[in-house]
């Protein structure tokens, strides 16, 4: 097809949706896939499989400052969130209004904590909700938002929680690998993480749980993961997760590069099109995330236009049908409709280069000019 030649460079800037598989994770997975062995079996193959899991558990616990006994593998971030929210059996659950669908869907009846127009949790509102909440109370707040990248005041949440004797669950799926995390020092009770956001495979995640916390399992059966999550372990996924975590912990240089790329992009656009806007630019954000408003073109159409130029970005949270829903995050921030409807998310990662960003800037400006 001749028109395909029109598409030049393919650029992936949708790391918050999923990151490319790291080579270290890929080889760990392939190695494991070659061996039989159920980790619960008594024979040597079983023991080898068990070793794979424990090695990965140690890689992950090291990466996030937890003990190995804190790590419970799950099928991903969604399951980790559900286990935390449903398994802790709290009478009252308070969640931020910008949580991921996994949290919103698990506890639709939960009280919502407001956020400011910069996407930051309203601590005063949380306090007033805590005063009225039934006990035991669970607070669930994400560490960093997937759409805006805004980093939430987890320490302040934790301090309030101690004051009101509430449990704290943190969805750290987007924060993992992008912010330093030390579970044991954080005082958090439960933390959800997922492999594929840091270059591991999809279908594997973990809930990190304070050791003395009692949690009722959602998946029952053979009693794997110390009874907290039954089902034969996803061995290849777990191996890939551990390898990705270890590779991620050695990437400080890449982090510096990523923030430079992101800032270069934002500066270039705002300089050329001052009516464009970066959402929550002045807040503390993840280094890789940019929620950017393009005047005059809705997010849905922007995503298509970028894709047709070979650039992968996203808008709001995509449903499995592929349709784009209006962003509940930007809505919760009480932004004007135009900002909610015309903002897309660009999220960079370790494989992006200066040329990627230059192409992104070129295409952004072209789409803007063509539609206005």
């Amino acid at each position: 097809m001749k028109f395909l030649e029109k598409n030049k460079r393919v650029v992936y800037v949708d790391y918050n949706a999923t990151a490319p598989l790291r080579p270290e994770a890929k080889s760990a997975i392939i190695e494991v896939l070659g061996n039989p062995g159920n980790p619960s079996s008594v024979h040597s193959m079983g023991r080898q499989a068990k070793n794979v899991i424990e090695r990965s558990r140690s890689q992950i616990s090291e990466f996030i400052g937890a003990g190995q006994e804190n790590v419970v593998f799950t099928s991903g971030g969604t399951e980790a969130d559900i286990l935390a929210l449903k398994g802790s059996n709290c009478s009252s659950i308070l969640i931020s209004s910008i949580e991921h669908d996994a949290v919103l869907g698990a506890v639709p009846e939960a009280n919502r904590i407001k956020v400011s127009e910069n996407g930051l949790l309203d601590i005063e509102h949380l306090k007033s909700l805590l005063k009225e909440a039934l006990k035991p109370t669970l607070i669930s707040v994400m560490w960093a938002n997937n759409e805006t990248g805004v980093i939430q005041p987890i320490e302040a949440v934790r301090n309030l929680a101690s004051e009101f004797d509430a449990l704290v669950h943190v969805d750290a799926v987007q924060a993992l690998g992008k912010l330093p995390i030390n579970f044991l020092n954080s005082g958090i009770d439960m933390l959800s993480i997922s492999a594929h956001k840091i270059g591991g495979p999809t279908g594997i995640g973990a809930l990190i749980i304070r050791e003395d916390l009692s949690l009722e399992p959602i998946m029952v059966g053979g009693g794997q993961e110390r009874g907290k999550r039954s089902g034969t372990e996803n061995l290849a996924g777990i191996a890939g997760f551990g390898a990705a975590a270890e590779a991620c912990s050695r990437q400080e240089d890449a982090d510096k590069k990523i923030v430079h790329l992101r800032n270069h992009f934002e500066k270039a656009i705002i300089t050329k099109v001052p009516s464009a806007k970066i959402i929550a630019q002045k807040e503390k954000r993840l280094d890789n995330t940019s929620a950017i408003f393009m005047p005059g073109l809705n997010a849905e159409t922007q995503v298509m236009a970028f894709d047709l130029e070979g650039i992968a970005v996203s808008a709001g949270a995509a449903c499995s049908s592929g349709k784009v829903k209006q962003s509940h995050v930007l809505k919760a921030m009480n932004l004007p409709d135009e900002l909610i409807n015309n903002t897309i998310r660009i999220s960079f990662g370790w494989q992006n280069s200066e040329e990627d960003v230059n192409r992104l800037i070129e295409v952004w400006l072209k789409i803007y000019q063509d539609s206005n």
Partner: protein
Amino acid sequence: MAALLKIEIKCEKFFVMEEKIDLGLPGANWENRVVVAMSGGVDSSVAAALVAEAGYEVVGITLQLYDHGSAIQRKGACCAGADIHDARLVAEKIGIPHYVLDYESKFKESVMEEFADSYARGETPIPCIRCNQTVKFRDLLQTAKQLGAKALCTGHYVQRAIGRSTVELRKGIDQKKDQSYFLFATTSDQLEYLRFPLGGLTKDETRQHANRIGLNVADKPDSQDICFVPNGKYADIVSRLRPDAIEPGEIVDMDGSVIGKHDGVVNFTVGQRKGLGIGGRSSLAEPGATDPLYVVDVNPAERRVVVGPRSALGRNLLKVSEINWLGDKPISGSGEKLMIKLRSTQQPISGTLFSEGGDNGKIVLDELEFGVAIGQAAVFYSQEDATRVLGGGWMTETSSY
């Protein structure tokens, strides 16, 4: 050897094909991006495939118009129906990018709400025309332009022709499949940008193409119902959106005597004979026999359904609004002699259209017409050239003189 043979057969098939679709766009085909509206049915799938075969840069777009899960009222069903899945598979097969656009709120606002209102007013609406007029040829068309597409294609069986002074809308070649009735509201500006790759094909030819290309939807049956009423029970939708329209009331005869009860005006349409739940009346013409009864009027304010003999249905004066005129010259002051369709399945009848200022008009039919329902469209065809569509309007009042 076997492999060689295979290639030869493939090539032969290739050359047997008729000439490729030409959308009449300037420049080489591959330089032109075009959007094809893909519903997941066989027609729009073949339209997309033929345009792609002709070498255009095709972008397939499927509109999510309503929540499928809630339309079939099944908990846990996906918001997207099987049609969206089919469209995606077709796009994959023919190698084009494909997107699903969320038009739920636009569709609800522009089509479903009006559909319910119209029924509640005792009318018989045609949501498909409203949908073409609004979400497809206004909203999707705008998106196509924003994507830099040079044209928007659909799988409708109508033709577009370059006339002497304007772009013309014409019936599809296939008389049985012609969809011009449903596209009367397409404006000249929209026609400039639209293309209908199937207008010159019969439905059989479309299915043959689908088989030749190997599309999974080749044998998919044509849709019969209104898309957002999958089980055909539109009263359910109306009762959900406008609960008043399903309150029970009386069935009266032409003199106002009560002769029965009904369970909501929404279940009746003018001209309807079946399902009244009452028999005919003694025939005056033929003692001992009964004349069948028809719905002659639906009065939602009094929740009354008026029935009478067929003769009471005769109409020859129609008021139409929102006229879309596609003639070469403005509507003549002395009246335009036209062929007119008052139902999609009807053979055109002759009449004269008079403008009443703005986009309003009056139609005088040459002969009485029976069972004309308010809310339906009156679609105009040329008397000289039966294939040419001259627009149409929505019927707001009917009477006889």
